[in-house]
Every structure is written in structure tokens, then in C-alpha cells.
């Protein structure tokens, strides 16, 4: 009798532990399947959201939009509006404050003298984008816009001016690509810097098998009183990139262009000594401006800004307000500002329309510590310049891959 009882007891205990073990094993298998199902759902949402962003008409130049979209409605699909993109709050670099306007600016500055600074008060921030997309609390995302083609320009010789250009695509060099290069000469020994017009200001060349070429401006000899900026377009079979170069500035003082809200079409020119906090000393820089635009046949053309005050001065220190210039239209291009005074001189450039200088942008949250992150990729054009748009998407509901 006792043997039967012991047998019964042992069998019950063994069965209990065996059931517990198999419940765990089955549960793990099922939860893995559920998680993968959710991750697949996130991946599908990623593609859908990316297409929603790229195919919805662009954010207007003023006010809060009713939808989050970047599409240029005047063009075909996957062509983005260069001004809509400018209103996105980029997280690439630290924001910059400017005491004289009392504003903080989003910073998409690509190099020390090529700026895109936009006031936070008029930006579309990440939180607004989540609400407009209807995914607040459900998903988080990061949107990045990277130029498909980069052009790296360096000065090889100054007598006459000779430049080397390397044209690199996302995957490989852009070999045998056409390159149009515009020289913008700036005369510094005048009251205000003066944009000179010379013969053969535009040169055209073709890259070699590794995407390199050199361009010589045979009648241009830069010197301390004659500086320059260069803008170059490279293109091959619809793939287009843009590059720029200006020599290192002289001195510590320079001009910083701050964009006003897009609807005003104004740019505030600040003395670098006043950024971020107003300087105690009054230093003046004299400036002149010009505007570069690209036509449909890849030609680059210098034109006047059309502002009533294309040249003037900016003085640092209290009581000296910054200068404002008007861009006059929504034609994308490049604002070129030459400045000079007291041993400080140089050229700074600012894109008017996001793509005009081939800047990159990262918008949204950070995918770190969010478990599963789905990504998707599209090729787009922004005002004719090729970009790759990548969307990283993650769930905000806390589940993540198991195992």
C-alpha cells in the first residue's frame, strides 16, 4: 500500500515539474513568435511612414502644418520641397543662441563657414511631427537625409587657381561624371568687398575612372586682396551632387547668417563676436552679398540678391543691432556673403533651400536603447540634388526582441 502511495506521490511531483518546464518552453516559443510578429509590423509601418512623409505635400513656409510631409507638389513623387526640409529641427549639431535676437537656432552647419541656422520658434519639432503623423506614444523615429553624391574640393595651386575635385557616391566614386564649376572672385581692397566678374568664370570638366578631376581658372590668381568661393555640380545619369569650397578665412571675426522665419524671406547677419553673447567691444565688418542659382541644364549662374541693401556693415557690441537682408523670393540657391575689415576677411555661404549646398540632416529621436529598430531607405531629389532618405522606426510600447 505504501509502495503505491509513494509511486503516486513521485509521479505527481515529476508530472508537476515536467508541466512547469514545458509551459516555460512553449511560452518562450510563443513569445518569440509574437515579438517577431510585432517587429514585422514595425518594419511594415516603417515603409508606410516613410512613404507618407515623402509623398505628402510639403510643410508650408509659415504656420503649423496640418500634416507632416516633405513632397514638392510642383514635381513628381519622391521629389522633396527644399524649404519644407529647412523647417525641420535637426539634431546633427548643438543649437546656437544669439542674444541680440533672443532666439535659439537649430544648427545644420556643415563646416565652420557654411551655415544653416534656423530659429526654433518656427521649426517643426519632433513632438509635433509625431502628433501630425498620428504615432505619438506608439512609435518613435529618426529621419536622415544624406546626399547621394559628395564633392570634396581642395585648392592645389594659387598661380593660377587650380582645384582638385573628388566626386564620391554612396557606393562608389562617380566616374566619368560631368562637373560644372563656378568661381566667385571677391575683391577685398575696396570699401566693401566686391564680387568681380571675370572671363571664363565657369569651367566644365569630367571626372576620371576614380571620380577625380582638376579644374584650373587660368586667369585668376588669388592673393591677400583677392579671395574667392567655388561651387561645383557633378552629375551623371540623373545622379546629381553639389560641392563648395572657400579658402580659410583671415582673422577671428566673421559674419554669421541667421535665418529668420521662412515666411519673412529675411536673413539676419550677425557679427561672430556677438554669438552667442553680445560682445563688449564694437568691431565692424563690411560685407557684400550675391546669390547663386542653378538652372535645369546644370548651369550655375551668379545673380544679384535683389535686396535693397546687398552690401553694408555689421558691428558687434551693445547698441549695434544686426543687419537684415531680404532674399526676395523662394527660388532656391546659395547666399554668398563676403566680409572684410581690420585684418578679418573671408567668404561665408548659406543655402537658401535645404539642398543648395548639399547639407545633411538628421531629424527626430535617437534609436539607442529602443530594442528593435526597423529601417527603410528611398532615393529622392531635392531641387535636383540627389539624396538618400533613411527612416529608423521603433516601437514605444516597451516590447522588444526576446532571447
Amino acid at each position: 500500500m505504501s509502495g503505491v502511495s509513494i509511486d503516486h506521490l513521485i509521479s505527481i511531483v515529476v508530472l508537476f515539474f515536467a508541466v512547469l518546464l514545458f509551459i516555460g518552453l512553449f511560452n518562450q516559443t510563443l513569445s518569440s513568435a509574437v515579438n517577431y510578429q510585432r517587429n514585422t509590423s514595425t518594419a511594415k509601418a516603417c515603409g508606410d511612414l516613410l512613404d507618407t512623409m515623402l509623398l505628402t505635400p510639403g510643410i508650408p513656409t509659415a504656420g503649423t502644418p496640418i500634416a507632416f510631409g516633405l513632397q514638392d507638389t510642383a514635381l513628381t513623387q519622391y521629389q522633396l520641397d527644399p524649404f519644407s526640409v529647412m523647417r525641420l529641427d535637426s539634431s546633427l549639431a548643438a543649437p546656437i543662441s544669439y542674444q541680440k535676437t533672443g532666439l535659439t537656432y537649430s544648427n545644420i552647419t556643415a563646416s565652420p563657414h557654411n551655415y544653416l541656422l534656423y530659429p526654433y520658434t518656427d521649426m517643426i519639432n519632433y513632438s509635433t511631427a509625431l502628433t501630425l503623423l498620428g504615432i505619438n506614444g506608439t512609435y518613435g523615429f529618426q529621419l536622415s537625409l544624406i546626399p547621394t553624391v559628395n564633392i570634396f574640393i581642395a585648392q592645389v595651386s594659387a598661380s593660377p587657381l587650380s582645384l582638385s575635385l573628388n566626386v564620391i557616391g554612396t557606393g562608389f566614386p562617380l566616374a566619368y561624371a560631368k562637373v560644372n564649376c563656378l568661381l566667385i572672385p571677391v575683391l577685398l581692397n575696396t570699401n566693401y568687398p566686391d564680387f568681380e566678374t571675370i572671363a571664363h568664370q565657369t569651367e566644365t570638366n569630367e571626372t576620371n575612372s576614380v571620380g577625380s578631376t582638376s579644374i584650373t581658372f587660368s586667369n585668376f590668381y588669388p592673393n591677400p586682396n583677392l579671395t574667392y568661393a567655388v561651387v561645383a555640380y557633378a552629375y551623371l545619369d540623373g545622379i546629381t551632387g553639389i560641392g563648395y569650397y572657400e579658402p580659410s578665412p583671415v582673422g577671428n571675426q566673421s559674419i554669421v547668417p541667421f535665418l529668420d522665419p521662412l515666411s519673412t524671406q529675411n536673413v539676419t547677419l550677425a557679427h561672430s563676436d556677438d554669438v552667442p553673447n553680445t560682445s563688449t567691444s564694437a568691431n565692424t565688418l563690411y560685407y557684400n552679398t550675391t546669390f547663386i542659382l542653378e538652372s535645369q541644364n546644370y548651369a550655375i549662374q551668379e545673380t544679384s540678391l535683389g535686396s535693397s541693401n546687398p552690401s553694408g556693415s555689421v558691428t558687434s557690441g551693445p547698441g549695434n543691432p544686426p543687419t537684415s537682408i531680404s532674399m526676395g523670393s523662394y527660388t532656391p540657391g546659395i547666399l554668398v556673403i563676403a566680409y572684410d575689415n581690420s585684418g578679418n576677411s573671408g567668404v561665408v555661404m548659406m543655402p537658401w533651400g535645404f539642398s543648395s549646398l548639399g547639407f545633411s540632416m538628421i531629424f527626430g529621436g535617437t534609436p539607442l536603447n529602443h530594442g528593435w529598430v526597423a529601417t527603410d531607405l528611398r532615393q529622392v531629389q531635392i531641387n535636383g540634388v540627389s539624396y538618400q532618405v533613411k527612416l529608423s522606426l521603433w516601437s514605444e510600447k516597451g516590447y522588444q526582441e526576446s532571447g
Partner: protein
Amino acid sequence: MMRTVEVLLVIILLGAAYVATSSFIALPSPSTVSPVDLNQLAYTTLQELDSRYDLSSAAFQTNNLTAWGDLQIALAASLPANMVYNLTVYNVNTASNGAPLYSSVASISNAANLASTDASSYLEASSNVTYISTPQQISTNGVPITLYILDCSDTAGWWITGYTPSSLAQTVYSLLSPYFKTTVMVQNTNQLNQLLNGKPIEGESLKNAIIVNTNGEAVPIPSQFNSTNPLGFNSTYNSYSKYDYTLGKLTQFYNWTWVSIVGYPFYYVTNTGFLNNVQNGFGIYGISKSGNVATQDTGAPGLYAFLEGLDNQPYVYNTNSIAGTPQTGSTVYLSNQAQSLCNYYGLYPSYYQTSTRALPTSITGTYHLAVTTYLFNTTFGQPPQSTYNPGAVYRHLSGTNYEGGFLALGMTRIPDIRLTALGILCDYQPARYGSLYTAAGSNRLVVLQLGTVGGR
């Protein structure tokens, strides 16, 4: 003992069930769970390659090694480095039963085997259904001519309300520059002065050029033509209309075509530098009427002076208004020629416009002009004692030759700059050449297959 054996049997059954279940639930690899949408990436890549019709061109030139080489380079450069691809062009024909037949024509790839991939296709049409046109470059006697666009930063505009000269100049550039070998944006009045002194700005040809004044009723005047220069200022009448006379002379000498985009031509002169203390009577500084600069009584002498200069007549100061308002509520209509060419050039301004600054047809006799293009129908004035041309291209006749031209658009503000482009194109009528594909089939299907290195 039997119960223990039974439990062991149950455990074996459960284990077998788990193994069986696990073998059926084959969890996918992470890259399968969350793949890059290669289908859409392929589609957007094809779209980008075809953004300037290069893909269309290559699809119909499969024997052109250069075109295919360029296509492969562009494809490789635009895709991420870990991507493998296969781009194949198929000729699309129709079988006898109406079903489509696809035959491979050419292919490029960077991988021997694309086992696990996604693909996207793009249908390219030949010239039978797609028309790409290249504009002819405008020339005179076979020599390409230059388009000058006045975009002077040191000037102001009048009757271009809502626009700036610069914004109009940029639009003119985008509309017309494809038709010209050289287009020069005249960026300030110093450059304009250089031009008026017969010196090219960028080495371009001066002769026979077209000059578009984007300042509306105001004409940019370089500081060199200030009140001390008898070529710019008439001290007897205290008037800058002498500058307009000089412009007329130069227009005739170089056979230029001067374009006035809106309103009363040559009514004002503008320079925000040396005229910064002068205002036009409406509080706009930097602009002066071309009549008496002190009283700002009228701007009418400017147009007379220009026409006198164009016709090589002596300068006469005349303050009578010459432009008028056509009848029927100032409404004027595009001529049949202009309307028919709207489609050809893809410019579609409204076919009726408001004109209050039309020029009388009598000027053709007084100044030996011939109208070479009627952009608008000739109409009676108010009262109808004379006829007017609301918009036309005039050419000055010197014997049987033309020496100098003048496009006057007497519209009421705000200007529709497309009328300017249409006026020039109607007068020169450059052809638009359609590019032809030489393929036998009318359609080709381009399929781009993408995969990632190492599988998906």
C-alpha cells in the same frame, strides 16, 4: 511503479510535442523580419536615374557602350555599398493573341547570382509616346545672340508690385535661358554702364542682344549718367530723359531689342545710389520720373526720347502722354499667333489682360517702326479716335534692314512675366527639336533587381 512509467510516458509525449512544435515554428532571421524595402528602393532608384531621361535614352541605346557604362556607374554610386543589383532591359512586343511578349535586350549586374532579392520595374516609352524636346538657340544671321537680364541690385522697381526686380529676373532666366547660348544677369548699374560702353561682361557678343528690364516702368541708370553727363541728363529741362535718348541710340547701334515688361516704358529712371535723395512722387526713393527731376511732374519724355534715339532723330523734350487705355474696359486679348504658340512653348498666361499703357499705332510712322509681332490684338482707344497696340514687338526700319527693336507690354500692374517670355519667343520663334529614339519597339521594360550582400 506503473504511475511513474505513465508520467514518464506523458513527459516523453510533451517533449515530442515541443520538438514537433519548434520544428514547425521556424522563426525567421532578423533581416527577414525587418528588411529594407528593396522593391521601393529599386523603384526610387529607377525614378532618379530617369529624372533627366538618361535611363530612357540608355534603354533604347543598348549598343551604346558609353551610355551603358555611365548608367552602371550611376547605379553603383547611388546604391549602398552592400547592395547587389541586376538591371535588365526587356523589349515589349505583342503576340498574335494580344499578349505582351518580353524579350531580354541587355543587362548589367555586379553579382553572378541574385538568389534572394526584390525587384521593381519601370516602363520606358520611345518617341512614339514620349516627347523630349531641345530648344533651338535663338540667333540672328546664324550667330547666337545674348540675353541680358537687368537684375541690378542698386535699383528699385515700379509697377512690379509684389515682386522684386531680382525675383522677376530669376523667373525670366528660368523661362528663357534654355533658348540662348549666353544669358547674362546684369547685377548692378556698373555692369550696365560697362555694357553701354560696348564692353562685354563675360566675353559675350553684344550685337543683336535682347535686354530685359525687370524694373517695370523704371529703367536702371548708372551713376556715370548723372546730372553732370550730357549723355544722361538734359540740364535745360532738368531731365534724365537724355539717358533714355542715349539708350535708344545704343539700341539702334547694336541692334538690341529692349524689353519693357509692364506699364509705361521709360517713365522713370532708378538708381538707389546717386538718386537716393530723389523720390518719384509716391515716396519711393531712388526713383525719378524721366521729366523734370525737381518737380517730378511727368515721366512721359522718357519714351519719346528713347524712340527719337532709336530713329536717330534729334532729342526733343516732350511732356505729352503718349500711352493710352484701350476701350472695352481696358481688356485686351492675345493675338491668334500668340495663343497658338502658347501650346508650343508651354506658356499659358490668361488670354485676356488689362492694359492701360498701350502705345498708339501712330508711332510706327513717326519713328519708322515696323511691328514684327503682335502679342495682343490691336484695339481702339478711349475715345476711339486712334488705335493702340497693347503689346507688340517693334523693329526700327533703316531702309529694308532692322536696326534696333522694342518689345513694349502696356499692361497694368501686376506684371505677368510669362507675357515677356511669350513675346520674345513669338518674335524669334525658336524651334523645339524632339529627340528621337531609334528603337523598333515603342516600349521597353527596365527591371532593377536588388539584393543585399550576405542574403536578406
